[in-house]
């Protein structure tokens, strides 16, 4: 699975363009930060009130007053700003964040996302995910294509409670990359070593296959 994760992350980082303000979700998306090329200048936003997340601190520089949304100690890069939670979500809800990359549990063919709750499991809460999927200009979801039982997480309809309806723009899995268009969910790339047939077998959702990938 580590190989799959690398594929996902390597592809996800390509969504980040020079000059963007980007929110990376907690968990796997956070790992993308370290992979951003040095010549791509971005400002990473943390919904607890920081625009311009820096690297993790040296042990000597740890500051309990400086954490990211995953509650990890971080640093602030040059040009960073701090602000309160209302301002932070004004940025997000108001469409000022260019891109959010979030983890997913299920994505449907109409771009619905479920990533906050599994009924019957411990309640945790949605945190800022519902705000991000509505507010950021572009929503990229990254997740494994199938669950540990081999079942497709790319669904006709989500079975888990939704985080947002028709909110995903790009879905990146370890098997493929999809774009959500007015015509429907559309395959835009196959990951290395994956055939279209393998993808079809592993995918519950119906998707459009452009000519050059057929």
């Amino acid at each position: 699975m580590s190989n799959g994760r690398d594929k996902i992350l390597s592809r996800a980082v390509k969504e980040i363009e020079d000059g963007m303000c980007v929110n990376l979700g907690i968990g796997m998306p956070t790992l993308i930060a370290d992979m951003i090329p040095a010549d791509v200048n971005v400002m990473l936003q943390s919904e607890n009130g920081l625009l311009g997340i820096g690297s993790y601190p040296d042990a000597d520089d740890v500051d309990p007053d400086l954490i990211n949304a995953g509650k990890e100690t971080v640093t602030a890069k040059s040009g960073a700003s701090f602000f309160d939670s209302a301002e932070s979500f004004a940025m997000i809800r108001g469409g000022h964040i260019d891109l959010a990359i979030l983890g997913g549990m299920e994505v449907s063919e109409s771009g619905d996302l479920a990533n906050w709750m599994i009924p019957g499991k411990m309640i945790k809460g949605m945190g800022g995910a519902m705000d991000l999927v509505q507010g950021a200009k572009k929503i990229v979801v990254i997740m494994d294509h199938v669950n540990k039982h081999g079942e497709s997480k790319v669904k006709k309809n989500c079975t888990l409670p939704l985080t947002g309806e028709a909110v995903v723009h790009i879905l990146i899995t370890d098997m493929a990359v999809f774009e959500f268009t007015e015509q429907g969910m559309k395959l835009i790339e196959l990951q290395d070593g994956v055939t279209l047939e393998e993808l079809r077998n592993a995918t519950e959702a119906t998707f459009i296959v452009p000519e050059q990938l057929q």
Partner: protein
Amino acid sequence: MRKVITSLEEVVKQIQDGSSIVVGGFGLCGIPEHLIMKLQEQGTKDLTIYSNNCGVDEWGLGLLLQNKQIKKMVASYVGENKLFEKQFLNGELEVELVPQGTLAERLRAGGAGIPAFYTSTGVGTEVATGKEHKEFNGKTFIMEEGIVADYAFVKAWKADPFGNLVYRKTARNFNPVVATAGKITIAEVEELVGIGEIEPDEIHTPGVYVQHVFAGKDYEKRIERLTTSKKA
């Protein structure tokens, strides 16, 4: 303008069973440690707490859970707290989960005299159930209501005797909006400075929102996820 208090006792003892309290902080960062501990000590019960998180099992708002002082919790994320789950499943604890941005905005709205606003956050999800839906420019939004609580617990870095507050780094988080949303706002701070010592352009919370100021000592500032750079 006698806002500075030298003990939290006198103020916290006025908080009645059944009160509602908005509490600043994100995770364990920027939480009003002393106010929470004093409230735990006092044992005030049946509280409705509005806060982004509910601490961890042995710290922050988790202390009030431990003591079974919370009747209802309104939060966006409570995944760090095992006691929380147990009390919720037992039916001892009512829970309202609110998207983080909606929670922040509801607090700001309450403090700003705005009874309700529309947001697209939560549309098409469980969060929208039972809420008024309305279209603007062809897009659907739901109505969310402002929050005003009996008390607000705030943690700041510096204060002056008028209650002007300055926060430090991401310890700011919910604190400024929380400060506006309490009928009585109590701010605990690391340093109390003289009037006029805070540059007027650099004040984050004007003192008009603050009724009591307390300088706390020996802040623990526990870290939830210590993460450092991996040097070669």
